[in-house]
């Protein structure tokens, strides 16, 4: 067991609503209060024990400015310290863990929410682009993924058909995951075979879903009394790449590598060989491979090897972000999925994994990356 600064911060519990393409009969606040209520349930803590709330969402997606102000009640944040992070919820978790590690607070609630079904997701992604050079020519999230894919596949000596093992693993795992609205592997031929953003098909792009997630974190003292199986946050790191897509590396995510190295270093000098389980976020199959390579779980251009065994459960056992991408909450959902498994919580497949790596991405074309490492007592 490594002794690190951040061994002082633990994940006590977490929960998310069903992740589904459209919660057409629920508002944001309905989803948020469900996630928060379920995250508190079964713990000895109540809303009055929460020192602060940090949350992630997008004003553009939510269709209102500073949307967290309207969600305070549902988040349990009345008369509490509350901050909004306009990035994936994993950045909120990093912020909250730093507050606790610094001794400034004991218990925090980290929340992320998303209802992409209420707006135009393509317009949301395009709104992230600088408006002078990149936006006018029609660059969007799909074409960004296509441009990465063409160059990555050529460099790795792969074809578009090879990517099917990545999306099949994701959708099959999601079908086993009660938290994701997928009952079986999609059978639609066009989904798997029709060009969408060449060389990618629809099955290579993540599916936006609605949902909310809440994570309860605390210091070691509270964790000792609140849970018999705290999940320790051992390392954290984040890094951002250039904004101009054309100026970035064509087939790697160097910022993701920096984020992972930072997390490994903070966790006491561990490395990818020490990771039992990984939950990573990506908006495309090629993005997922590039993340796995950047965090060191595969050699450059060999991420696909991790999917040779269709039954592998080390990478994205939840299904990952491809079948369920609650934009702005995707990385925090990954943390919930990893913590559920490390904690041996009911409803998830049993595992002997003791360590996990969690990754979240943000920005246009996965510009920004956050990596968290977790560990549970043996």
């Amino acid at each position, binding site marked *: 067991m490594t002794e690190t600064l951040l061994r002082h911060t633990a994940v006590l519990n977490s929960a998310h609503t069903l992740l589904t393409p459209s919660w057409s*009969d629920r508002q944001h*606040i309905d989803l948020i*209060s469900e996630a928060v209520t379920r995250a508190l349930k079964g713990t000895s803590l109540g809303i009055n024990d929460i020192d602060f709330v940090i949350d992630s969402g997008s004003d553009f997606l939510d269709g209102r400015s500073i949307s967290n102000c309207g969600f305070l009640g549902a988040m349990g944040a009345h008369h509490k310290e509350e901050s909004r992070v306009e990035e994936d919820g994993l950045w909120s978790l990093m912020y909250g863990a730093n507050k606790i590690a610094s001794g400034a607070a004991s218990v925090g609630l980290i929340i992320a929410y998303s209802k992409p079904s209420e*707006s135009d997701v393509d317009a949301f992604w395009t709104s992230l682009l600088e408006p002078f050079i990149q936006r006018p020519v029609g660059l969007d999230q799909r*074409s960004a993924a296509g441009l990465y894919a063409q160059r990555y596949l050529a460099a790795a000596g792969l074809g578009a058909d090879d990517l099917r093992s990545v999306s099949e693993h994701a959708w099959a795992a999601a079908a086993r995951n009660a938290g994701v609205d997928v009952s079986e592997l999609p059978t639609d031929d066009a989904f798997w075979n029709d060009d969408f953003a*060449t060389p990618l098909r629809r099955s290579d792009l993540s599916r936006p879903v609605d949902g909310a997630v809440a994570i309860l974190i605390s210091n070691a003292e509270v964790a000792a009394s609140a849970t018999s199986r705290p999940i320790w946050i051992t390392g954290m790191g984040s890094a951002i790449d250039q904004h101009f897509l*054309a100026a970035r590396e064509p087939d790697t995510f160097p910022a993701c590598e920096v984020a992972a190295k930072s997390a490994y270093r903070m966790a006491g000098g561990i490395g990818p060989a020490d990771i039992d389980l990984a939950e990573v976020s990506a908006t495309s199959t090629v993005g997922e491979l590039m993340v796995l390579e950047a965090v060191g779980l595969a050699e450059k251009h060999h991420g696909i090897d991790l999917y040779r065994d269709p039954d592998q459960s080390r990478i994205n056992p939840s299904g990952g972000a491809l079948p369920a991408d609650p934009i702005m909450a995707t990385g925090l959902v990954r943390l919930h999925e990893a913590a559920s498994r490390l904690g041996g919580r009911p409803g998830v497949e049993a595992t002997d994994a003791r360590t996990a790596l969690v990754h979240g991405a943000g920005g246009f074309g996965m510009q920004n990356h956050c990596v968290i490492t977790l560990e549970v007592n043996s």
Partner: protein
Amino acid sequence: MKGETMTTTDAPTASDEMESLAAQLRMPYTLTPGWATGIFLAELGRHRLIGSRHGDTISVPAQDFSGTSGEPTEGLVEVAPVGALQGFTTTADGTLGLVLIDGTDIPMIHRLLDFDSETLQIGARVEAVWSDKPVGSMLDLAGFALASSSESFSPRAVPGDLLPPVLQVDYSMTLDYQHAYGPYYGTLFNAVKYDRRLRGVTCTKCARVLLPPRAMCDVCFAPTSQWVDIDAVGTVQASSIVHIEFIGQRMKPPYVYSEIVLDGTSTRLIHMIGDVDAEDAKTAATPGARVRAVWSDRRTGSLTDIDYFKLIP
């Protein structure tokens, strides 16, 4: 409902409920491209591509600062409007390519025009296609097509007649939303539309009646349960007489904006008091004044179905 201010009924069934609210955000912007990008945009109208020098790297479109070091550019250069295709992708909206302009080090992304599956190849030589009607935007360069000649030149000093930068790009963003009401707002607005009443819900802990209704009490974070019918009659808690005009007003100033506590509720409703002279309102629409809703002929299922509240003499 006459003669009663509060009754309790069952929640309507889901099939009665209104489902979503159409909303639109329109954001006008006057964007400032800055010096280097502004010159790049201005020069497109003269069919010239302007790049910027950053150490050993030449970047086009021209940038004020290096994307990697953050250092300011060492100066501008003119580059040939021709290059080679480094990558491309086709979506339902067309084909975009990564074009490496001759003599530069960072590709640019733009539209590929008039390619077919035979000509769309990595390494293809391409040339700029210019818009007939330049307006000072990126699309003054319409895109790239297959090169028709082998003409090119190395990056060179900018021409002496370089245009000043485009100072401002007008831009407008329109975003459409379909917001779900959810079970609580749906129940409220359904009652407004069809029954001309409001509906609150009771906190199981503090017993306050909350309007608009919600799943959890904001203050206690306890679940709510009991629905309460609310007649649109209440007491003014505070008022402000609005004299200024602004976008989105429903009444012409001056008018009275008030916080009203409806009978039987514990929350405050913001609405207008009408049918009163602005001067008289200073003394009549004060805290404690009693008001009753004047319902509109419209049935939209929103609080605008109440035209205004009227003072009860």
